[in-house]
């Protein structure tokens, strides 16, 4: 769910929270799919900001970038640790599993930080 300015709204977006006018009268309920007409109604009532479903593109990209940065960092550290022993197939498997697990651990911690 993200909060968008009226100018950023596009037809087809879904409202994530109901929208009221200043007097508290319900204009559009949550779950409404926005049409050009709906957006015009909101504008005419002086609404400036609404909550819609979905993630902001920039936010999404940031998460993807962060994940690939983390992966790169973890793998670099592991390679350094393992550099003299990697000929062994078992050690290769241990490094692969460790990388997966450390990424998972990082994301879990990240998730906990956000929810606090």
């Amino acid at each position, binding site marked *: 769910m993200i909060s968008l300015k009226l100018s950023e709204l596009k037809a087809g977006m879904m409202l994530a929270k109901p929208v009221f006018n200043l007097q508290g009268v319900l204009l559009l309920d949550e779950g409404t799919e926005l049409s050009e007409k709906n957006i015009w109604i909101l504008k005419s009532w002086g609404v400036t900001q609404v909550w819609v479903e979905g993630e902001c593109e920039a936010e999404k990209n940031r998460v993807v970038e962060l994940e690939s940065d983390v992966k790169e960092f973890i793998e670099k550290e592991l390679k350094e*640790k*393992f550099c003299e*022993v990697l000929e*062994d197939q*078992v050690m290769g*498997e241990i490094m692969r*599993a460790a990388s997966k*697990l450390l990424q998972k651990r990082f994301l879990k911690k990240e998730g906990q930080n956000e929810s606090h």
Partner: protein
Amino acid sequence: MRATNLTRIIGEVEDLPTLPRTILKITEVVNNPKSSAKDLAKVITDDQVLTARLLKLVNSSFYGFPQKISTVTGAIVLLGFDAIRNLLLTTSIFDLFSNKNRKDRFKREKLWDHSLGCAVGAKVIGNSLRYEKIEELFVSGLLHDIGKIVEILFLPGDFAKVASMVENKNILMITAEEHVLGYTHSEVGKLLIKRWNLPPKIVNVIAYHHQPTLAGKFSKEAAIVHLADILCRAMNMGSGGDNKIPPLNKSAWETLQLKLSSIEPIMEEMEKEFEDISLFLSHS
């Protein structure tokens, strides 16, 4: 020559870490085939702190008994002599690592986490091999680097030399020990564990966790701790004092007869159990 040298050094160390009197007494009772559960219960219940810790630990999710165990005798009957001794040993070893002395505390806490990670690893690997005496594996893992604690606390000069070489050359601690000291933490640990009168199995696992094939009839146990040491380092559980992974001993791996595909599930289980046990044995 080398062994004599080390014995001399250790001989000079006056207050080598001792186990609490109660633990020594418990070891004595457990080692005596004539002892009864009642004898053991009496020694334990004489020490209130130990009693409380024992009950807390056996009722933790780590042991996962379905029913609540409210008496020491109940715990002994359920777990057996050896397991109880090992369990109480676990809590005493923790004290040794977290000795209130501020100096080097950080290093020791890291080493504790590494040891705990190795203990959990040994337990999980043991379970997957359906090994019977899991407690023994756990304690062996916990004690595998006890020699490093002795070096930190009692041979600080030697330890500083080792630590600076580890840092400058980015090598394993055991390699640096060979170069600088001519003895290793495995040997120091072996001497200490022998002095504590712990069973030969634990002594051998500690002495040979880097060369498990030399552990004679305990080579399987040594191989388990050897692998657990590698896994917990790969998983960044604490620190063994360096930033390298020791090479896997090929024959040790073959001894274990594990499948390559079982590595990942073992590591996942270690991650889970490490969190559980840390709640009961942590520095906070």
